[in-house]
């Protein structure tokens, strides 16, 4: 195994799947870049460089730069999938969902059910999520709860390079529409990633820290922060179990409930405003199905009910930090 960044892991997944299956293609704004310009081809390779180099191997017929027209991109992706291709669309910032809501929510997500099980829509929508870039209200959201509540979509939120590669390969091979959310603060994160292709099944949680006092559930960047909080609290004698479900839909509730049965305590961390969040959803499901295991009220650590602020001083308060996660864990074990 070799050390690779999240960016390299994602690039490798796309490259290997495009080699394996000629139906796989990439559509998005500046997925290559440089079209119609005097300078270099492949000038961007995606806004943060994930698809760099792919146009060189697969050409512009399979790595297609799109005008800045999100509705057309997502609609064409859904239509191409319905017509037998396996497109991977790059929405760039997930906030641009606002422009193309209909194509994802009313079209792609519902074809199979509305058409009586006859439609197959094997598409992937990749998008960058999350805060930390001081990018303000229209470039910092996560929006994963919105996708998660729509039946027909599968939603993936990797937290390591290893998971990113295996889950993206699964997303491309999957026959349903998959929303694949990459945290923009994690592209340079390094980790062990096998060179060969492998798929990680959806709906299987990863227990990233084993512990006995409290269960912490977190996704994406928050899983990394939850791990840091667990490592910090071990020194204080608190044994924290961290679960990264990796996909919000389907959700591996069994692993969460098994863990809560052992620990009796739950903290859910979610980079999202609190209302109708994954924190609220998981807390509700554990309360419903695992109430008898609980020794203390469930706590959640989320963003406040506000848009994402721009100023660094506000954004640092806005996002769940290791300190805030650790404080919630200390509070729940003290009860």
């Amino acid at each position, binding site marked *: 195994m070799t050390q690779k960044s999240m960016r390299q892991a994602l690039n490798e997944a796309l490259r290997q799947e495009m080699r394996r299956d000629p139906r796989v293609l990439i559509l998005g704004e500046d997925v290559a*870049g440089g079209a119609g*310009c005097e*300078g270099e081809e492949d000038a*961007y390779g995606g*806004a943060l460089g994930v698809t760099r180099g792919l146009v060189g191997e697969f050409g512009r017929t399979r790595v297609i*730069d799109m*005008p800045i*027209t999100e509705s057309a991109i997502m609609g064409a992706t859904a239509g191409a999938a319905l017509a037998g291709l396996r497109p991977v669309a790059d929405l760039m910032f997930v906030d641009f969902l606002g422009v193309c809501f209909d194509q994802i929510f009313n079209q792609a997500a519902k074809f199979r059910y509305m058409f009586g099980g006859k439609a197959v829509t094997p598409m992937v929508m990749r998008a960058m999520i999350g805060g930390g870039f001081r990018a303000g209200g229209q470039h910092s959201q996560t929006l994963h709860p919105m996708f998660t509540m729509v039946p027909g979509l599968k939603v993936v939120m990797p937290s390591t390079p290893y998971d990113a590669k295996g889950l993206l390969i699964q997303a491309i091979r999957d026959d349903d529409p998959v929303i694949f959310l990459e945290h923009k603060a994690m592209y340079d994160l390094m980790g062990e990633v096998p060179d060969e292709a492998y798929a990680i099944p959806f709906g299987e949680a990863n227990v990233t820290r084993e512990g006995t006092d409290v269960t912490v559930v977190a996704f994406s960047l928050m899983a990394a922060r939850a791990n840091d909080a667990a490592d910090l609290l071990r020194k204080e004698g608190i044994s924290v179990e961290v679960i990264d479900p990796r996909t919000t839909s389907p959700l591996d509730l069994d692993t969460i409930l098994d863990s809560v049965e052992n620990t009796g305590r739950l903290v859910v961390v979610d980079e999202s405003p609190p209302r109708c969040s994954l924190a609220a959803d998981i807390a509700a499901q554990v309360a419903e199905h695992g109430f008898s295991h609980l020794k203390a009220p469930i706590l959640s650590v989320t963003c406040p*009910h506000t848009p994402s*602020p721009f100023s660094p001083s506000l954004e640092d308060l806005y996002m769940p930090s290791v300190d805030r996660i650790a404080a919630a864990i200390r509070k729940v074990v003290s009860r």
Partner: protein
Amino acid sequence: MQINRDELLKAYRRMRTIRAFEERVFAEFERGNIPGFVHLYSGQEASAVGVCMHLTDADKIGSTHRGHGHCIAKGVDVRSMMHEIFGRKDGLCGGKGGSMHIADLEKGMLGANAIVGGAPPLAVGAALAAKLKGEDSVAVSFTGDGGSNQGTVFEAMNLAVVLQLPAIFIFENNGFGEATGHDYAVGSRDIIGRVAGFGMPATRVDGRDFFAVHDAMGEAVRRARSGGGPSAIETVAKRFGGHYVGDPMRYRTAEERERTMRDDDPLIMFRRKVTDAQLLTPGQLDALDGEIAALVEASAQSAAQAPFPGAADLETDVYVTY
């Protein structure tokens, strides 16, 4: 169209302020003093100023992610802008918006916008409000060549024609939508020809030339104020820099950028025109340059020392009442 000396000085002051402001923002970003993403307007000054010279505070504009120039052209306070871009509590939006969301409603500036194609529908709404309130004000949207392809923009233009609104759609063709060229992404390679198909007067002008923009906008504003309905203007002027500060700009060649900055500078063109015609003297313009440099310097210095917002500010301003 005649422009008097005071107006020429005002136009030059605004264009030079934009350039000086952007150059300072670039330097401060490189030094790590400005967080987030910044998109600079250098090279396109004549577009914003040629348009906004015709507008009062009662007229509305909607802007883009590349919005500093539109703000300054509309008369927004430079110091408050700099403080906002630095993320400070006394910035124009309390540090909550930043470069991509600067707004000053008192000046009729409805906000920079980080969604491509965001402004035209908003401008249509502002134009509708002006019409229904019986005012003679107009609403102007700025959109790039990249944004000109968005469905939201098409819908907005159609609506403005249907309702015969005092809306003016400015398409700033700076050659690039991010790292993709206009010649690739605009299928017809003719933004203004496509716009004309919606049923409104549409003109393409040299966006480097303040006077060309100013003339075209004068006609569009007269039409809008007198109930003649919407218009569109395409202003063609390449941006000097990248999509954002930090963009490696591999899609451009060094020769092309040098050529652009040498031959296509709206400020140089303006200065040559007004001094050749003996409307203004080099001394008058140099004096303004010095004044503006001092203003920008003072703005950046005070921004760097201003306090950041704190915990008490995080959850305010979400609703009027809740």
